[in-house]
């Protein structure tokens, strides 16, 4: 009883010792704050790292394939049993992405993923990362009529109401307008040129007549005429003047021949009849080959399906062919609906990481603004190898339908998603005879709490590398270097911070020695009154523990309060120092993430109390060993 009473009284009356446990308080508070913030960050980071990676993955090597995925999924289901939440098949291969940024070409490497519309979202956190809110709810690879209201703050006001479809329609109607104007202009040039050449021919004929009449002094200015023509008539097609100048040497009586591809090749535009008329494809073909008649101004423009105004290498596909069917090209004439109209149609949808398209730019007011190199509604081109050993590059047009942003730069700057079935067809992964499609990766999501490593090991045993050239790994394996670096950082940080508490322990040790010296006489009295050494010792151990409890309690309260109000504190620090403590732009978090783990708080508290008790052991032993007579005599 006296032990408790005295410990308690010492605690209440010896404030010097309380001062020595402030370091315990600070150490405990710091440990709690740092651990909470770190685990908050680690949790956010892990969920981001995990985001579009599945728990476990059975992957074929690069450009390789897993044949008969149905068989594999069945085997996996047998092996893992109830642990499986869901599975999906993915085709993954590196690709080159190309798009126009204000007329200049931008190319970069991406990891192209062919994903299954339905099952991919159930295996990864893909859908919540999509930027179009409608797509999050109802996923498809088609363009949306909904806009991006969440981007008001990002400095893109026209995006908020403007949907991808609105943008696409506006863009291509403007292009069509401009192209029509340009063609009209060209026609005027042509007329002027023809007129001029007619004049020159007349002059030439006059000269010939004069020659015939014997007038040798008449000027021969045919070349000068050509030179004039070159400088005056500036057609966008530089071949035109040459053709025109050549025309003068062919002979004045003949009509000036036109370059057959003039309007199609340079512009990518195709002259076709009005859509409401029944298209006469034989006539179109004749126009194409003949060329000259195509300049008929009454003809309505239609876009060539691929490669609109990219360069001169237009392929003449009027519609999309099924790539698996090698005879598709030779099928009967396409209907009007089969013609690709960018104002109404889209290519295969593609979803790009936001970091691929987004760049920072400085606006007129000097503020940083977001600039999007492409936006949903634009067309992009992807180039990738076919499957198998003798891979051939394929180029394919896609329409950007949405962005996704997992806020993991590594993913956001490299992943592009297209529909699985399209990619399988284009890459030659569909067997033309059976129609079976192979995949490159099978992604598995396990149930909450399932052991990922155990599942991976089971699958590895089922698909041994001797028989199956697969790479089987968990998402943590993929991100092992980063995760282990973070883990080590956390460990070292904890170790260092625990040193703070250890230092506090030495403070307690020193204070306690002083208190034991001060209390020598009291110890003597207690012993004289029959208190055993163990009792005297436990007074000081109890005192140490009481100090530890008080220090830890204060530290826990302080730490938890700090964690609770950390964002407010960061703001205050920012106001006071003028230095931004937490930049949401860098971390992609709007607030400092914190997770308080009760186990961690408990462990830190117990550790601190233990250190306080251990620090009081030596002084307590000294007190216990005091000889009562010596102690009583002590002045």
């Amino acid at each position: 009883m006296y032990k408790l009473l005295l410990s308690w009284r010492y605690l209440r009356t010896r404030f010097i010792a309380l001062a020595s446990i402030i370091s315990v308080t600070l150490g405990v508070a710091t440990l709690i704050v740092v651990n909470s913030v770190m685990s908050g960050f680690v949790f956010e980071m892990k969920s981001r790292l995990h985001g579009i990676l599945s728990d476990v993955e059975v992957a074929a090597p690069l450009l390789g394939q897993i044949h008969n995925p149905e068989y594999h999924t069945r085997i996996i289901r047998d092996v893992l049993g109830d642990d499986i939440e869901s599975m999906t098949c993915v085709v993954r291969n590196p690709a080159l992405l190309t798009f126009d940024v204000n007329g200049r070409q931008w190319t970069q490497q991406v990891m192209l993923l062919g994903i299954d519309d339905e099952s991919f979202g159930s295996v990864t956190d893909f859908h919540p990362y999509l930027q179009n809110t409608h797509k999050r709810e109802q996923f498809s690879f088609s363009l949306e009529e909904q806009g991006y209201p969440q981007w008001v703050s990002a400095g893109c006001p026209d995006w908020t109401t403007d949907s991808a479809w609105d943008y696409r329609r506006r863009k291509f109607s403007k292009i069509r307008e401009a192209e029509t104007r340009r063609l009209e202009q060209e026609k005027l040039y042509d007329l002027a040129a023809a007129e001029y050449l007619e004049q020159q021919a007349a002059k030439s004929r006059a000269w010939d007549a004069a020659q015939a009449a014997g007038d040798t002094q008449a000027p021969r200015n045919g070349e000068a005429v050509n030179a004039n023509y070159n400088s005056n008539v500036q057609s966008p097609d530089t071949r035109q003047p040459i053709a025109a100048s050549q025309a003068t040497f062919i002979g004045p009586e003949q009509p000036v021949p036109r370059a057959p591809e003039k309007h199609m090749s340079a512009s990518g535009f195709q002259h076709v009849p009005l859509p409401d008329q029944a298209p006469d494809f034989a006539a179109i073909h004749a126009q194409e080959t003949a060329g000259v008649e195509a300049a008929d101004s009454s003809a309505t423009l239609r876009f060539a399906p691929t490669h609109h105004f990219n360069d001169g290498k237009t392929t003449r596909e009027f519609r999309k062919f099924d790539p698996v069917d090698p005879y598709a090209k030779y099928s009967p004439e396409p209907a009007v609906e089969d013609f690709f109209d960018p104002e109404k149609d889209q290519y295969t949808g593609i979803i790009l990481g936001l970091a691929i398209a987004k760049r920072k730019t400085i606006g007129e007011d000097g503020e940083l603004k977001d600039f999007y190199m492409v936006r949903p509604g634009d067309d992009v081109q992807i180039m990738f190898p076919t499957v198998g050993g003798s891979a051939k590059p394929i180029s394919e047009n896609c329409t950007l339908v949405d962005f996704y942003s997992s806020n993991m730069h590594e993913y956001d700057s490299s992943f592009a998603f297209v529909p699985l079935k399209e990619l399988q067809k284009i890459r030659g992964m569909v067997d033309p005879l059976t129609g079976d499609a192979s995949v490159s990766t099978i992604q598995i999501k396990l149930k909450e709490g399932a052991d990922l490593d155990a599942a991976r090991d089971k699958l590895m045993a089922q698909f041994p590398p001797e028989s199956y050239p697969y790479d089987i790994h968990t998402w943590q394996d993929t991100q092992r270097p980063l995760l282990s670096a973070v883990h080590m950082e956390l460990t070292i940080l904890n170790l260092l911070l625990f040193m703070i508490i250890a230092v506090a322990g030495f403070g307690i040790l020193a204070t306690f020695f002083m208190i034991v010296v001060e209390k020598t006489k009291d110890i003597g009295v207690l012993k004289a009154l029959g208190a055993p050494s163990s009792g005297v010792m436990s007074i000081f151990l109890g005192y140490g523990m009481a100090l530890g409890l008080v220090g830890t309690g204060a530290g826990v309260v302080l730490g938890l309060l700090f964690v609770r109000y950390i964002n407010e504190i960061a703001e205050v620090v920012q106001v006071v120092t003028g230095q931004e403590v937490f930049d949401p732009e860098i971390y992609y978090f709007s607030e400092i993430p914190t997770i308080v783990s009760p186990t961690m708080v408990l462990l830190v508290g117990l550790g601190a109390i233990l250190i306080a008790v251990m620090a009081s052991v030596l002084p307590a032993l000294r007190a216990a060993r005091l000889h009562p007579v010596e102690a009583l005599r002590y002045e």
Partner: protein
Amino acid sequence: MSRSTITKPVTIDSMGSMELKKHSAGATQLSAGATPPLKLAMPTLMSASNIHKSYRKGELEVPVLKGVNLEIAAGSFTAIVGQSGSGKSTLLHLLATLDAPDQGAVHFQDRRIDNLSPRQRETIRNRQFGLIFQFYHLLPELSMLENVLVPKMVQDGFFSYLRNKRAYKKRAVELLEMVGLGHRMAHRPNELSGGEMQRTAIARALISNPSVILADEPTGNLDEENGGEVMETLDNLREQENLTVIMVTHDVGLAKSADKTIRLVGGVVVSD
């Protein structure tokens, strides 16, 4: 005086160990058989035989007691006098088992106590001896009442103390009132005068109903008036509680009121 024969077995029975109980049974028989009507006829309660004690100061060994023999009768008031350094305090410490003699033996109730285990000596100190010091040695963090209760707290475990707290408190209040400090129970030692503190120390020495009061210069630090008051209190209590008192003092005047005076000179008893 008849009370002594009743109270003593009670106090002895309350001792912890079986061994001690056996002894106490013998003592009870002894005192019960004798039925002494007078103090002088009381049996020997404590005795010391041929006690040697020396302190080592560095290389030098300083002999303090060189063969002291003494006997203390139950219920007597013994004064040990002598000059500073004559070893009287050391003798008291040896009697109180705070220290062990180099040679010789201390007997208490016919039992040798100087070579007992620390645990047993602590029990004897706690229950049989009441110690009073020159500098009072009250615990400054505790109130007067708590200071008086300290021996009881030391004696009992946590729960048995809580169980008996009411009785202990009653006894402590009674004792404090007996020493005339009923109105200062809640005060801290530093709020009291030296005489009051010493009287509290007396109350503390009496809380566990000891057989012997061992006092080391109880008035040494007090002025005449306060010293007189303390001595008066001690005398009264001795009468009331039938105590055996052994008091170390250098004040010959105080020693005069004792039944027996032992004079120590240079570590040897020169006169009884």
